[in-house]
């Protein structure tokens, strides 16, 4: 008779796999991608493709020739890093800079730590911050949204709504006088504003987020605590003085907050493991985002806020354990 396989229990396994999770995330990014292609045209498509291809290329090169280990570029994680990196840079960014950003994201932030699952910081955010520090001019020129543009040069750029408000307030202007200079809330929600490639449409990103929640790719704790704490902190300041501090709704729909809360902060690898850990982490992200946006040097604080909280994750993991069974004896 033929030999039997012997292995420890259990003998059945979930259908879920790493690549299914990763491709699920990619699928959920489609609405945001479509909106950005609509408003930023060909330039956005080129930036996205360049980032994805270079991330795959660098991961391949490093795995094959530097580590000389198995090549796992099609597990989907490098594609996500590429797509997310593209989503948080301006559509007008020269493509060679996108390539450098990809190299930093994959090479420095991911592979040096040992590849998938080992990195401390979110690779795409590290790539963006590197570009922001290295190429401050190009990284601060945000093209104005048009419709299905194929233009690649002489793109008209302007400040993002967040920058308009921040600079205006710094020069002593009142928030109520500044608001006519930024798009209406409906436009902000739909994504009709200046900003990075994929971060502009809060609605499209929310759709993707809801898909990920339904598919159980992410859980509610981090997005809810992140967005909730932004509303609370920004709301408190706004209540103190609405002429100096813009209302919390504005914070929610502008900049990279939605993308950050649903895609960057929820990155499994770099976020905490327990429910309470996730909530604390989300609140920390929200707090730091508002502190940087309002009191920091940059108009936008999502990238730094998440990276700083990434650094706290090991500490959060050892401080916030899951609720153990039989720890509190409840008799009733």
């Amino acid at each position: 008779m033929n030999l039997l396989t012997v292995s420890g229990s259990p003998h059945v396994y979930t259908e879920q796999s790493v690549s299914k999770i990763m491709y699920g995330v990619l699928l959920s990014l489609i609405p945001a991608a479509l909106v950005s292609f609509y408003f930023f045209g060909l330039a956005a498509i080129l930036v996205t493709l360049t980032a994805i291809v270079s991330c795959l290329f660098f991961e391949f090169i490093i795995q094959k020739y530097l580590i000389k280990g198995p090549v796992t570029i099609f597990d989907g994680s490098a594609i996500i890093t590429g797509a997310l990196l593209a989503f948080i840079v301006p559509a007008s960014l020269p493509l060679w800079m996108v390539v450098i950003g990809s190299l930093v994201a994959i090479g420095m932030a991911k592979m040096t730590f040992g590849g998938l699952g080992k990195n401390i910081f979110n690779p795409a955010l590290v790539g963006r911050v590197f570009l922001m520090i290295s190429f401050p001019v190009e990284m601060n020129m945000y093209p104005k949204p048009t419709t299905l543009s194929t233009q690649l040069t002489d793109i008209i750029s302007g400040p993002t709504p967040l920058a308009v408000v921040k600079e205006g307030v710094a020069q002593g202007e009142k928030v109520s006088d500044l608001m006519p200079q930024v798009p209406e809330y409906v436009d902000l929600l739909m994504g009709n504003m200046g900003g990075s490639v994929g971060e502009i449409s809060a609605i499209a990103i929310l759709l993707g987020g809801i898909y990920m929640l339904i598919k159980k790719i992410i859980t509610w704790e981090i997005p809810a605590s992140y967005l909730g704490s932004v509303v609370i902190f920004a709301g408190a300041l706004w209540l103190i003085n609405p002429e100096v501090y813009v209302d919390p709704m504005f914070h929610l729909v502008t900049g990279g907050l939605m993308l950050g809360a649903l895609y960057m902060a929820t990155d499994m690898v770099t976020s905490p493991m327990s429910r309470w850990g996730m909530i604390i982490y989300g609140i920390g992200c929200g707090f730091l985002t508002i502190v940087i946006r309002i009191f920091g040097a940059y108009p936008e604080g999502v990238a730094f806020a998440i990276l700083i909280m990434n650094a706290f994750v090991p500490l959060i993991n050892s401080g916030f354990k899951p609720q153990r069974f039989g720890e509190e004896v409840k008799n009733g």
Partner: protein
Amino acid sequence: MKTFKLGGVHPPENKLSQNAPIEVLALPETVAIPISQHLGVPANPVVKKGDTVKAGQLIAKGEAFISANIHASVSGTVQKIDDIVDSSGYRKKAIVIKTEGDVWEEGIDMSTDLIKEITLTPEEIVTRINEKGIVGMGGATFPSHVKLMVPQGKKAEYLIINGVECEPYLTSDHRLMLEKAEEMLVGIQIQMKALKVEKAIIGIENNKPDAIEHIRKLLPSYPGISVEPLKVKYPQGGEKQLIKALVNREVPSGKLPIEVGCVVHNVGTAFAVYEAVQKNKPLVERVVTVTGKAVKQPSNFMVRIGTPIAALLEAAGGLPENTGKVVNGGPMMGKAITDISAPVTKGTSGILLFEKQASSRKPVHNCIRCARCASICAMGLEPYLLAVLADNKRYEDCEAERIMDCIECGSCLYICPSGRPLLDQIRVGKNQVGKIMRARNQ
């Protein structure tokens, strides 16, 4: 509907044999009865090669406090007392009997009449259950009489009857509840009398509505017993999870259910208790599910202990050609066996076959720290962390992270998208931590 709170998974149920009535399997030519089929000290053989035995006759005596008597399951001649490979894959001593006829020991009531009146005193009940070699039929095979003796200073309030059968595929408890419900209910009353408790709750997952309905109808003549339908969630059949689900009490870490006033017994055990006390019949047969996607006739058999597993497979339509794995028990906690000539023992609830393509694990990838294992752990542990700590031989840290609380339900390995061998590493860690703890206590 009630269920336990912390964690849990939903593996596909695949109860293929749930509509197959219990069939009595033909007597095998020989039986091999291991002298250790229970948790605790092996029993000592009291027969020798060449002896003639009757079915139901004592052949090995459990002499330690935690041990159990072993009885002949068939009548015939003792062929040898020798090591055989049992379903755990280890060589263990067994008494091999060649079947001759089907003659039963005197004093055993072989009729199918239901005897409701309980004449024995609580002490006599415990003695009888001990004599008849009854052990937990859910799989852990802990000697039942020990559980019915409440330690001094503790008080039992509830008898919890485990009819959850949360393991996918298995249906032996389900069929027993449908076909032997009255016997089981009398068995529960016997256990209530022994424990001196007023209340017994039968927990049944609501994927068995027919069993819930059937028992409910019978309940009026069995005061003190109630049935509670439970939301399907694995591992609800774990006794700590079941107690939490039914009476909302948490057994403290490292303690037994009696700490919160509960004693948990399986429905199969309740039936065995009935037979031992009312019929004077020792535990020599049990219901075994034979199932699997490629099995021709997924079945439930009433099988004599010691019957080779191969005989059950034959009766269920033969061993399918491309069988890759044979599991003793359910898919979540069962043990893969090496040899289908291994015998059925008191703890064998099912034989599950997997086709070759379903016999291997998923390829292993890096941990992506998705936290699924931590969020589904029914004991609130962090399997990813315990696995890494155990792998790095950091056993003190394992203990501090409460590795000994792990009930080895397998949910973490089931859910892991990276296919990591979490439970394997945790088992190694538990083993080492157990050694350290024993050394400390000496």
